């Protein structure tokens, strides 16, 4: 069971033998100094990895509907080639994996993508629940190159603007992947952080190679986590730790009724343009129960009437976060 969980990660990093990072196989075993017996550290590291993924807290209520903004640093610091092929591309592929795992684990959540490049923060994709659009947008952005300064303040402000209209029942999060050691801001970054904290948005940061004061301040002020990755694999692990929702702080939100639609899969005799797929014509799709719009993928938000459309397996998937297994 344990091996199955880690198999996709290992397979992705395998490739050709000469491309793999230099492996120190002698560090996988440890000798007991007194008896001289050998012990494999693989089980220990695996358990530690699992613990990190859950961030150590079990049986705690977590948010079910997450609205997250992923802020990716595409500044000149990410053009460094100490990770292969470059930091930016390695981070982008880790983010790719993360996005897919995120929607796998939290089907009814939504994600937005922001890039920090050349001193500005660009919104690569708006808040939606389609992993493919996010991954495509990210790939295009990374192909555009990594240059300029990263401005944390602009990224934080843009994320706050994206998350501002979200109602209180969703947990609002910002996840920053920062590869540099400094931020070059036009205004006061601490005021932006205070704004986040005041609105109850949680900002977590995954950094690379060194602890930067402003990032640790951001995570502390807003109640998030700051972790620094020592290598590519470690970066992927830290990112995977954010796939499960963070524990709810305090009493959470008072119970509210959320209107949701449960469309059924229908097959039409003739193709019909879909509203959420750039009007591409499809024969198979979903019909919104309220406005009868033709939707290609679910879970989604109906383009016409804004109703959250889910299917019951998705809801069941997220259910155990709200009512944790004992």
């Amino acid at each position: 069971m344990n091996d199955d969980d880690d198999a996709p990660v290992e397979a992705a990093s395998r490739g050709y033998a000469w491309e793999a990072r230099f492996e120190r196989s002698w560090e996988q075993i440890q000798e007991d100094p007194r008896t001289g017996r050998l012990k494999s550290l693989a089980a220990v590291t695996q358990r530690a990895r699992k613990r990190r993924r859950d961030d150590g807290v079990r049986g705690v209520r977590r948010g079910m509907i997450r609205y997250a903004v992923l802020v990716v640093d595409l500044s000149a610091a990410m053009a460094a080639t100490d990770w292969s092929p470059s930091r930016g591309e390695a981070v982008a592929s880790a983010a790719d994996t993360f996005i897919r795992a995120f929607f796998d684990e939290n089907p009814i959540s939504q994600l937005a993508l922001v890039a920090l490049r050349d001193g500005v923060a660009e919104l690569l994709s708006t808040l939606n629940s389609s992993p493919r659009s996010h991954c495509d947008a990210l790939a295009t952005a990374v192909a555009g190159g990594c240059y300029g300064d990263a401005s944390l303040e602009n990224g934080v402000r843009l994320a706050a603007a994206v998350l501002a209209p979200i109602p209180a029942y969703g947990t609002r999060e910002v996840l920053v992947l920062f590869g540099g050691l400094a931020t070059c801001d036009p205004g006061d970054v601490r005021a932006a952080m205070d704004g986040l904290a005041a609105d109850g948005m949680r900002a977590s940061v995954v950094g690379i190679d060194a602890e930067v004061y402003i990032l640790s301040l951001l995570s502390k002020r807003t109640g998030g986590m700051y972790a620094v990755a020592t290598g590519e694999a470690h970066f992927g692990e830290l990112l995977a730790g954010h796939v499960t929702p963070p524990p709810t702080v305090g009493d959470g939100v008072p119970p509210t009724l959320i209107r949701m639609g449960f469309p059924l899969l229908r097959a039409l005799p003739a193709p019909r343009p879909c509203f959420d797929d750039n009007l591409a014509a499809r024969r198979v799709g979903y019909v919104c129960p309220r406005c009868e719009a033709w939707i290609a993928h679910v879970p989604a938000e109906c383009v016409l009437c804004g109703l959250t459309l889910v299917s019951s397996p998705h809801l069941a998937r997220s259910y155990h976060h709200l009512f944790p297994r004992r």
Partner: protein
Amino acid sequence: MAWMISRLLESSGVGVRTTPLATRCRLPTSSSTTTSICSTPRLRGSSRATLLGNVWWCLTRCAHNIDNVCIDALSVAIRGDTLTRSLRNLATLNARVGSIKTTNADRLADEYARLVQGISIQGILPAAQDDAGRRRATADIIQASPVIPADAIEETVPGNIRKAEHFLRFLRRVIDHLAKRMKRPDVLQESAPKFVHALLVDVQSDAKPLRFCSERLKSLLTTLEVADAAAFAPLQLVADMATLLGTYGKGQSFALIFEPFDERLPSIPDPVLQLCCLDASLAMKPVFDRFQSVVLTSGTISPRDMYAKVLSFTPVVSRSYSMSLQRNCICPLIVSRGPDQVAISSKFDCRGDKAVVRNYGMLLVQLAEAVPDGIVAFFTSYTYMESILAMWDDMAIISLLLERKLVFIETPDTIESSLALDNYRRSCDAGRGAIFLCVARGKVAEGIDFDRHYGRAVVMLGVPFQYTESRVLRARLEYMRDNCGIREGDFLSFDALRQASQCLGRVVRSKADYGIMVLADKRYVRADKRNKLPQWILELMPEANVDLDTDAAVSVSKAFLRAMAQPLDESAQLGTALLSEADVRRLAEKDKVRTTELAAQKEHAKAAAATAPEPVAMQMDEDDDLVDYLGAVGATDFEDEAMQVLEETEAQLRAP
């Protein structure tokens, strides 16, 4: 720390009264100048006048500069404009005396009467009046005199300076003589007796009035009810010099050095007459005499035997403690070569070498790339810093630095430097990162901390030797070579390493803090320099981190930063770096047992004294209880006080 001091004192069984200064000490490193408990007011910092009663311990923190402080306390420098200003002061005083004579003549008459009877110089009567106590109490009150109390004369003021006009005329003659001596175009270096002899011949007096100059002037200022005593500082300086000359003019421990201009700037006339104290042990003597135990503590006292030689005392206990850390929170490195393998150094002959300067620049640039937030770089002197910055500007290294972090520079001007420091901190707080370039013996190095993100790395560019051609330093080195047996090279490198350690210690202020310490000079690799670093730095510097080149140093720093960025396991610290609650309770239990033991022993001693009144010759070794011994010989008064103080300390321990 207060707890630890109380434990130390209790374990020796001596009665103690902790002064506020003693309970404020910290381990292991401390910034700020020396503040010491001493009855000589000219020692910088606090002159605690409230030490009445039985104070047995004197605890000094930041004592690494104590020899410099002792020297400065007994040295006076007089510049050209000091004399002109003091002449002006004299004129003012003459006018004041003239006016007072017409309006309120009995004030002067009172002062005269007081001086004749010799009751008190300042007109302040000491509190305790019995003969034995009076001597000590006067020594404790803030003294007007710049000399150490043992040498302060206890006689009455001599007749030729008792009257105000006569005294002012005497001062005038002294100032005229000094002005005459300072008119020479060349350098003068004389021993004190020769100078004093010439002075006395010119002033037509003997040495005794000279000794009273300072006190007499203070008394005069008090009598005339001068509101703005600070305006008379030049005159007080001259009076201090006269007093020092009169008191110490006979020995070889003082030298007079006159320089018409500073050698580094020969075109600017800047006459300075300096009375230099060459012997640091003079000012320490009263401290050693007055207190039963003196403890010198600092984070960077190293090597310890040098202090013993300079201050001429034999330490009873000489210990060096290391930090108890959970993880190695400092990363000391010695970089001796640049990426092109050219050795880097701040030696005088290497200073113009473009390769060396470029290597220093690239070291800083690569560190700026690898280290987040603030970096502090220390240069050995202002002139060196300016020349290096000019060359870096030509090589476009400054623009490389600016791409990564903002650059701030310390200047000799205080306001500019404090502005620079303020903006440096703002830049670090805003996440932009910054580099602060300052000088190893400047104001920033003495007082400012760069803890947490304000200083993640400190770089010492070169070895901060003092200006070795300075005459004052040469005189002092000669004296130490002849009298203390310290070689000049040893002392100079000791002083340089002491300064370097002080600079390095700026970045780490707590156990949760971490920092990289880079010593960038090939001379640090040599064992005679490296071994002078304090133990807590040497312990955390493995052999592999000595003699690195720039690239290796940067990769070591990166690995260190990666390790430090990982989360700290709080629970693992208990027992090693922190005391857990159980540990504290256990130690408190031991204290309680100890105090009951002491009380029981005292009872036993009392009973023994009652039955056998003749004194018993006891063998005193270090572990013997002093209370026990004194109890045996019947010194009951001391016991009572000791018990009372022990109870007080116990109460202090129990209180949070």
